[in-house]
């Protein structure tokens, strides 16, 4: 919200410097983004360059068809010669002038005396837009004719203002108005808050306004006032300046008044052209199926039976709290106005706004909850302004109202504040602060909540916050006093870090890829009903798609030797409940199957788990792949990025379940090992892994290690066969193994392999 400071000062006279006020508000009340200057800068006497002028002569510029050459009296001995591009005035007009040396709004541009097409221009005649007083830049601004030339412009126009740009919190709808902020400023600075503005004009007429509210739950109050003899026109400069300063566009006096009162007091209002109301009446009801409404933004909208609408005798004329309809818009021909001041429930307005994807100033206030007592003061103030600024005659009124609930009374303990803050706040201070905020505090500390805070302050802890927020800067720094204390990673968390570190040591870079992916290997992957984009529509069941995308991106930007891994959740659908989210480890590497497999073996090795690979095809179109405990490793088929790529993915919970709880020491020092190389001829199809497993089983306790050395096909090997060589070592923790032991162990292995795989030992 943008708060013109001159407006704020109308409600509270404070003497703090603005910067100090802004700094303090940030602690106690709301975010203050910045303090900016609207309009003419007020530094170094700049305002003295902005003057009232009277045009003495005006005629076509001799050398330019689109320019006027004028003589303007600005209260000096001689009139000034000024070249001007506007044609909406002539001799005799009273205008706003800036003379050379004046710095224009924005602070960037200084007016200088110069020649335009051969004629001297000794100043500039100003438009509303140039003064940031309105949108009208089509012609220059015409002032009242009775103003004396040379009068400082600042004396007759709000040529500049300081603006506080604040962001209000969701729980403070009372701060979406200048008056609400003034109340906060008065508490903060100890200055007096002036009474709310507005006095009803004299009622002239007794016309009945027929108002019916069908949905009292959603609309607990509706006041409709009828005004006749309305003179529609532009708003005075001060009002326009206020609206522009607050970030709204001036439209016409009637519309501007509704906006002005909304900004000033916080209650959104709406003005209907009464002559356009069918049967001249108002019905607040739910929309009927199939009803349509063109809203003031020019959009035709299909109404939903959940939309609360304002209707007349026949059709909807507005979406309650969101936007009025074009069918009853106030316009140039309007002479009778029905002014609405109501109280709408937040959820009703919120849902309509969501359904129609609308965001209006009115809606944002209703959504947070407007003070239910505010409709009365708001319509009073707007009525006064309509009478004063549009000559309107108040001729009738109708109102529907549900009895307001009694204000909440909270039983409070000032000691609670100290318990929450860890800081003792004197009781007298707490009472004074609460009362200044509009709460009433009884002798027994029962606290009655003002209507404008009723939604937020319902419990004693909410009352604590009202006191606490003014003392946040004084809260000390302590640490919890603990009875029990421990801090450690879980087993799985430690292993996860270990796995990451092993891969980093092996040359892999860690990647973060999106949990939401355009495709997934599992056709049952959960799909978002309303994704942000088709690229992020599925909750992944595998890390592979994201990693492939990351690899592709690296190739695209010219990186080579890409090795990536990721540790993250995947999301596996489970019937009837939220998905399970196991941790996965995925990797991708430029190179063939054995590069990925080597990484998997490094991980298993680090975790003391013996991997067992079985041929499988976990990746579509891949030439080779294998299943391993807890996951898979595979080479990809041809990819658009080119080259060989291989990948792996392991379920970390399954993998970690295989990790031995503790490693028992084996004596490998006292007695020396015996080493031997063994080569076997086997059928082509026999996997090395199975031979190794069989060697381990046959070797028993005394087999310490078996390593794959080579596999060979060639001259000395029959077709359809291969030779596989292993290095084995035997060792006993109890004695030195003899040559006889070696022979025995070797025979065990040879016999087992012969029996199981028809393996022949090569000499």
């Amino acid at each position, binding site marked *: 919200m943008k708060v013109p400071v001159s407006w704020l000062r109308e409600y509270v006279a404070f003497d703090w410097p603005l910067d100090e006020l802004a700094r303090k508000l940030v*602690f*106690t009340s709301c975010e203050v983004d910045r303090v900016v200057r609207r309009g003419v800068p007020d530094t170094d006497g700049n305002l003295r360059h902005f003057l009232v002028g009277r045009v003495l002569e005006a005629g076509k510029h001799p050398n330019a068809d689109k320019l006027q050459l004028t003589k303007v009296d600005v209260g000096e001995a001689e009139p000034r010669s000024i070249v001007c591009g506007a044609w909406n005035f002539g001799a005799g007009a009273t205008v706003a002038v800036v003379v050379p040396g004046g710095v224009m709004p924005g602070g960037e541009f200084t007016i200088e005396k110069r020649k335009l097409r051969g004629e001297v221009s000794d100043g500039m005649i100003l438009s509303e837009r140039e003064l940031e007083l309105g949108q009208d830049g089509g012609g220059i601004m015409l002032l009242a004719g009775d103003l004396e030339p040379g009068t400082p412009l600042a004396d007759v126009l709000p040529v500049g203002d300081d603006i506080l740009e604040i962001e209000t919190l969701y729980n403070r709808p009372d701060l979406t108005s200048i008056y609400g902020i003034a109340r906060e400023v008065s508490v903060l600075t100890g200055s007096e808050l002036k009474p709310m503005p507005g006095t009803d004009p004299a009622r002239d007429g007794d016309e009945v306004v027929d108002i019916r509210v069908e949905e009292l739950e959603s609309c607990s109050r509706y006041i409709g006032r009828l005004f006749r003899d309305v003179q529609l026109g532009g708003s005075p400069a001060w009002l326009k300046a206020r609206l522009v300063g607050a970030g709204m566009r001036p439209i016409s006096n009637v519309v501007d008044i509704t906006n002005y009162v909304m900004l000033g007091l916080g209650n959104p209002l709406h003005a209907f052209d009464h002559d356009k109301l069918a049967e001249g009446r108002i019905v607040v009801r739910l929309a009927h199926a199939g009803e349509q409404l063109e809203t003031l933004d020019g959009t035709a909208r299909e109404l939903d039976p959940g939309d609360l609408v304002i209707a007349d005798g026949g059709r909807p004329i507005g979406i309650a709290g969101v936007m009025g309809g074009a069918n009853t818009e106030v316009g140039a021909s309007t002479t009778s106005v029905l002014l609405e001041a109501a109280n709408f429930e937040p959820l009703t307005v919120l849902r309509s706004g969501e359904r129609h994807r609308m965001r209006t100033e009115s809606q944002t206030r209703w959504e947070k909850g407007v003070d239910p007592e505010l409709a009365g003061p708001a319509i009073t103030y707007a009525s006064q302004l309509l009478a004063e600024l549009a000559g309107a005659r108040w001729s009738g009124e109708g109102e529907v109202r549900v009895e307001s609930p009694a204000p909440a009374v909270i039983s409070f303990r000032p000691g609670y504040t100290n318990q929450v803050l860890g800081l003792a706040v004197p009781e007298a201070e707490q009472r004074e602060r609460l009362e200044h905020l509009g709460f009433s505090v009884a002798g027994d500390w029962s606290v009655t909540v003002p209507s404008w805070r009723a939604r937020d302050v319902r419990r004693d802890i909410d009352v604590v916050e009202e006191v606490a927020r003014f003392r946040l800067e004084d809260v000390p720094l302590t640490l*919890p006093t603990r009875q029990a204390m421990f*801090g450690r990673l879980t087993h799985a968390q430690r292993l996860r870090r270990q796995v990451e570190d092993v891969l980093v040591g092996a040359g892999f870079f860690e990647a973060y890829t999106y949990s939401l992916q355009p495709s997934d290997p599992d056709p049952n992957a959960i799909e*978002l009903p309303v994704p942000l984009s088709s690229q992020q529509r599925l909750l992944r069941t595998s890390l592979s798609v994201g990693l492939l995308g990351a690899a592709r991106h690296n190739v695209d930007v010219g990186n080579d030797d890409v090795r990536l891994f990721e540790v993250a959740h995947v999301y596996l659908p489970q019937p009837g409940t939220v998905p399970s989210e196991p941790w996965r480890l995925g990797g991708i590497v430029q190179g063939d199957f054995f590069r990925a497999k080597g990484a998997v073996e490094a991980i298993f090795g680090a975790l003391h788990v013996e991997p067992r690979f079985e041929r499988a095809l976990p990746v579509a179109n891949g030439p080779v792949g294998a299943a391993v405990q807890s996951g898979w490793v595979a080479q990809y088929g041809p990819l658009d990025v080119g080259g060989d790529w291989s990948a792996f993915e392991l379920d970390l919970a399954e993998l970690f379940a295989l990790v031995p709880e503790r490693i028992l020491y084996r004596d490998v020092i006292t007695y020396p090992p015996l080493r031997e190389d063994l080569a076997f001829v086997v059928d082509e199809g026999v996997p090395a892994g199975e031979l190794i497993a069989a060697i381990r089983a046959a070797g028993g306790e005394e087999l310490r290690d078996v390593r794959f050395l080579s596999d060979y096909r060639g001259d000395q090997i029959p077709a359809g066969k291969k030779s596989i060589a292993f290095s084995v070592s035997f060792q006993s923790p109890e004695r030195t193994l003899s040559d006889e032991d070696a022979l025995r162990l070797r025979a065990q292995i040879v016999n087992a392999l012969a029996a199981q795989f028809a393996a022949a030992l090569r000499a």
Partner: protein
Amino acid sequence: MDSVAAVDWAAYEQEAIAAYEHAGTLDEHSVVNVRYLGRKAPLPQALRAVRDRAGGLELNSLKARLEAAQHAAAMRIAQASLPDLSGLDVTIPGLPVERGRLHLLTQIRREIEDVFLGMGYEVWDGNEVATVWENFDALTTTPGHPSRSINDTFYIDDDTVLRTHTSPDQIRAMLSRKPPLYMVSPGRCYRRDTPDATHSPIFLQVECLAVDRGITLADLQGTVLQFFCALFGEDREVRMRTSHFPFTEPSVEFDVTCFICSGRGCATCKHSGWIEMGGAGWVDPDVFRNVELDPDEWQGFAFGFGIERIAMLRHGLPDLRAFWENDLRVLGQF
């Protein structure tokens, strides 16, 4: 025996040492070895034959002296046979050893975890898919609260969302075990933000929750200070400003003094001297009631902040999309 005893050991030693000193090659060195220390040389023979303690000690000590001379000679010969590397360019890179990098966000996440582990907190891994009850209702978020909007939150169905913050882990943690509870929960969160330099629909947050008897906002402020001193260096200051979150009351935003300019004002802190770090507050008593804890007995504080923000501030990254692109040229910098 006699022949051995007849050896003049002083002369033997003198000869042997002189021989070692004269040996100029490894071959000459082995000849000397055989002559004076080999199996059949007089000294080892005498050692095998000696029977008296004094004689044994004397011979052993002689052997040790000769072995020292043997070793010194061997080293001298090896040194002399080294190739001349005086001209070697030592600035030429060594043989490459492969290594990768942890992602910057993981480095920072671990650092955060370690600080909290040091303060006696547990690290909690929470699910990213949450029930509406966990993500909103139990955290006393009103039905009309804007965070529930379908324009802000990814719904899977009416009862299930992608968590919009790590705060549902507060609920899960408190349901899973009894206080005292001190936990920190880092993880992925999701909001319907269109990606740009400072927004991503997927982002990482850290939740911190302390539940114990007598916890105050002062404890929150002190903990936040400890944390940021650990992360951004000593001499930090923190401050709390009023804010609003559905599940804390009072709610605050906390700022830390800028670690770039130490509070003097710079571009990083937008010349305010302070950097906004996250939201926090005193756990709302109704949140305790929702997980069946008695708010008269248990109090708590919670705070949350973004990991990317810390990474961007500390390392000067201008665009958080870089975290998800995984360009090795970027990952390799950290």
